[in-house]
């Protein structure tokens, strides 16, 4: 019949369209699978190299800004940092000039109720109490980076008054909604140390300073914490070198993986803040 001309080609085109769609989807999938597998393999090689960089930096502390190159594996790692921080201005190996203000000791972001530990005394001292190191009368404390998820801060200063260990507490908060009876701090975000929302200068005038414990409260996201010594008199106005911050960037092909490590060797455990210490017997 005259009006049936063209039906065969129509059916053929339809069949081909379906076949084309199937074929293209299979090819597409194979391409994306191969690409993903290749990237994942590069990523693993880069990560292993980055870990190797961390190992090298941990094992050879004085060898700062090193690198690890696995030529036959086409992977490598660049390591920055490695030495003890914060260094004392003017001391050997420290980039800071004599009589300049010591740079801040910046902790990696702290989760809610996670504890940061800062040494004022020499952490390697074998005496009891440990040898005094920081003798500054004040200390700048920085914390938080969010105006909505505002973090409060609990600080515990521990010092040795000549006969016994004593502590002094601060409870600081930027929130004005009265969620607690903490001391309210006006946060402006415009400080010489960038990236922090709040700052408080605390009194560290007691002699025999030992350590500072800091705990962020109320925050749902991890937020930064830092302390900076005040003064320009080198050793006495500087926190003792106590931490190591190492960043290792592994590279394989076009993929990079970064491993960051922050280490303080001698830290009292978190339950320290909740425990009761007594020279004599404790009676209920």
């Amino acid at each position, binding site marked *: 019949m005259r009006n049936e001309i063209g039906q065969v080609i129509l059916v053929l*085109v339809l069949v*081909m369209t379906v076949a084309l769609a199937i074929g293209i989807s299979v090819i597409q999938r*194979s391409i994306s699978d*191969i690409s993903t597998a290749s990237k994942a393999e590069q990523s693993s090689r880069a990560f292993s190299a980055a870990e190797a960089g961390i190992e090298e930096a*941990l094992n050879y502390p004085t060898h700062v800004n090193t690198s690890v190159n696995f030529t036959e594996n086409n992977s490598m790692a660049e390591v920055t940092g490695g030495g003890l921080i914060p260094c004392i201005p003017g001391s050997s190996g420290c980039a800071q000039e004599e009589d300049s203000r010591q740079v801040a000791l910046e902790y990696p972001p702290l989760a809610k109720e996670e504890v940061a530990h800062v040494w004022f005394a020499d952490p390697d001292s074998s005496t009891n109490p440990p040898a005094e190191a920081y003798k500054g009368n004040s200390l700048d404390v920085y914390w938080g980076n969010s105006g909505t998820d505002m973090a409060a801060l609990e600080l515990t200063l521990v010092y040795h008054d000549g006969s016994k260990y004593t502590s002094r507490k601060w409870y600081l908060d930027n929130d004005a909604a009265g969620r607690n009876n903490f001391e309210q701090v006006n946060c402006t975000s415009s400080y010489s140390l960038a990236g922090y929302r709040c700052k408080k200068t605390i009194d560290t005038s007691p002699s025999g300073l030992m350590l500072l414990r800091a705990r962020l409260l109320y925050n749902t996201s991890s937020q930064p914490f830092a302390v900076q010594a005040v003064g320009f008199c080198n050793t006495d106005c500087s926190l003792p070198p106590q931490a190591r911050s190492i960043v290792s960037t592994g590279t394989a092909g076009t993929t990079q993986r970064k491993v960051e490590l922050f280490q303080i060797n001698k830290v009292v455990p978190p339950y320290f803040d909740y425990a009761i210490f007594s020279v004599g017997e404790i009676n209920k």
Partner: protein
Amino acid sequence: MKIKNGFSLVEPLLVVVLVGLLVYLLASIPNSLQLITKSKHESLVREIAVKQIEDKRTVNYTNLVNGTSPISDPRLVLFQGSGTIVVGDCDPIICTNGEHIKEVTVLINWLDNNKTQNLTLKTMIGEGGINQ
């Protein structure tokens, strides 16, 4: 008016082109399926290699002995794979100060479409390092 019978030149040409394209696509499907299988194997091998390194990191440094040991992961048998994990001293070019570091290399070979594929992961484990 004269009745037009048969096809114009464009119609058979179009059919030939479309049939050609269809044949090409159908012919490349098996190849694509092979590539999908290959990428699956690659991902699995990568997982096995990463696990081997993680397992080594849980071993105390003093118990890390130089030598080569086979990888015994049942998943490797599925595609005729085999592998070794090599523990050796750190290359003096990298560890210039006699650091207490071991170099750990995971080598895995397997067959895909009768071709040997391989994956090598290399890292280091040091005394007092990660997990130590």
